[in-house]
């Protein structure tokens, strides 16, 4: 991806250099050639030239349209994480980055990822707007409070790369930096299994799901007071009062914190808010748990 961004960048540099040089040379040549030689000079008027005007309207127009289409293509692909990407949760806060791997390892201001494998980050902020920026990967995305944003990249070479917060976030903004450690896939596996990893994210999510009492209403077979959450993520849900919504991460998060905002059709408005009872990390774990339910359902379905 970085190579594609750079190719476009160099195309733009080439266009810029060409037009700057053209203008500079013309100005310098005209300035010297037509310098005032006597005070009484009165050059002929040239009111304009329609052909030239059309020419220098259409050529820039054509060039900028090339830039637009090319740029949009690259942007679109940067915005689409591949389906098989490794998913890591990131929570930003003043002034640190917290990452949690599906296997349960969490890190602060550091992120270990395997090389040659697409990695997708699902990010949210606990306070103000931050921005996840890794210049070496040519990726940047704002991290918003109250919403999930995603960014993905595929590191080609092992090494250590700088991570910056690129959206001004308060006093220690310049200190909200870290590094991305890219490892050979085998080393990454070793890193994952080493250390005191403990419980996986989905496992932690399941514990939370029980502890907060979610399981009492959201029965897996759909007979509870709340809808079943098995296989929910990614599905379209019909809403009370008409309309429907895709049950993505943002919808689940909203339903935990503001349960009545978008009620599933056919269920009473009885759930109370979990605001203050669950952290952003906790919601991420619940999400991981729900996604694991999706996968289980998927494998069962295949059987």
């Amino acid at each position: 991806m970085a190579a594609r961004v750079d190719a476009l960048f160099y195309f733009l540099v080439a266009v810029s250099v060409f037009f700057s040089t053209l203008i500079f040379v013309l100005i310098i040549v005209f300035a010297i050639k037509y310098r005032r030689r006597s005070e009484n000079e009165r050059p002929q008027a040239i009111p304009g030239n329609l052909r030239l005007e059309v020419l220098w309207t259409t050529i820039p127009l054509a060039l900028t349209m090339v830039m637009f289409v090319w740029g949009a293509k690259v942007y679109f692909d940067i915005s689409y994480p591949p389906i098989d990407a490794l998913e890591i949760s990131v929570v930003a806060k003043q002034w640190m980055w917290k990452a949690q791997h599906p296997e349960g390892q969490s890190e602060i201001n550091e992120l270990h990822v395997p090389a040659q494998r697409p990695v997708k980050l699902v990010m949210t902020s606990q306070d103000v707007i931050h921005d996840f920026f890794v210049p070496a990967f040519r990726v940047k995305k704002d991290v918003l409070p109250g919403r999930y944003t995603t960014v993905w990249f595929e590191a080609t070479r092992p090494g250590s790369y700088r991570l910056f917060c690129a959206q001004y976030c308060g006093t220690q903004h310049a200190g909200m930096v870290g590094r991305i450690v890219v490892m050979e896939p085998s080393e990454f596996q070793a890193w994952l299994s080493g250390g005191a990893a403990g419980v996986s994210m989905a496992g932690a999510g399941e514990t939370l799901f029980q502890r907060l009492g979610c399981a009492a209403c959201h029965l897996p077979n759909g007979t509870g007071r709340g809808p079943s959450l098995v296989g929910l993520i990614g599905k379209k849900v019909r809403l009370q009062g008409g309309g429907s919504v895709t049950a993505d991460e943002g919808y689940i998060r909203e339903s935990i914190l503001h349960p009545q905002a978008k009620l599933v059709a056919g269920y009473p408005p009885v759930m109370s808010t979990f605001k203050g009872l669950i952290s952003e990390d906790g919601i991420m774990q619940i999400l991981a748990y729900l996604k694991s339910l999706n996968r289980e359902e998927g494998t069962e379905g295949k059987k």
Partner: protein
Amino acid sequence: MPETAAAHAHHFDDLEQQHQASWLGMWVFLASEIMFFGGMFLGYTIYRTAYPQAFADASNHLDVWLGTVNTAVLICSSFTMALAVRAAQLGRPKPAILFLLLTIVLGAVFLAIKFTEYYAKFIEHLVPGGAFVYDDALAAAAEIFFSFYFAMTGMHALHMLIGVGLLATLIVKTARGRFSADYYTPVELIGLYWHFVDIVWIFLFPLLYLMGRHFG
């Protein structure tokens, strides 16, 4: 030189040019005012799209009868304002003063009703901020609704207050005989301003008071 009470300012060629400039200036100002309120209308639109049920529910906490009465009061005041301008156009100071007074009274009635409503919301803890209480799980988005309610009607009420002040100056000037059938520009311009404030309310009324009624 035909000097009348209505001499034009020195930098204009004549009274007609001065009148044209003032008239255009007021319209340019009103275009600007549309955008001023427009920022709030945009915010309202975004949140109403995002939280339709909370907005409908919160909207039903407003007093629709007071809202309707106030709309009617404001329309009456626009009517009297139009008649005041007409009297000024015809060079009749006495009816002009009468209609201007009526407009002020109606404006004051509007503001009085508005502040009664504000007071009620204060008692009901529906003023956003620390004291906001809303006995429903829709509380968060409802607080956004009431933030818009107070910001939009507050800005509108502020415009009304300024308008009432301007009308008062018009009465004084009319009583002193500053205006004639040849020169009544200030009456006309402040009339435009007053009608504009009316138009803002014409949109605020359905957006704030009526949007959720059919659920209630």
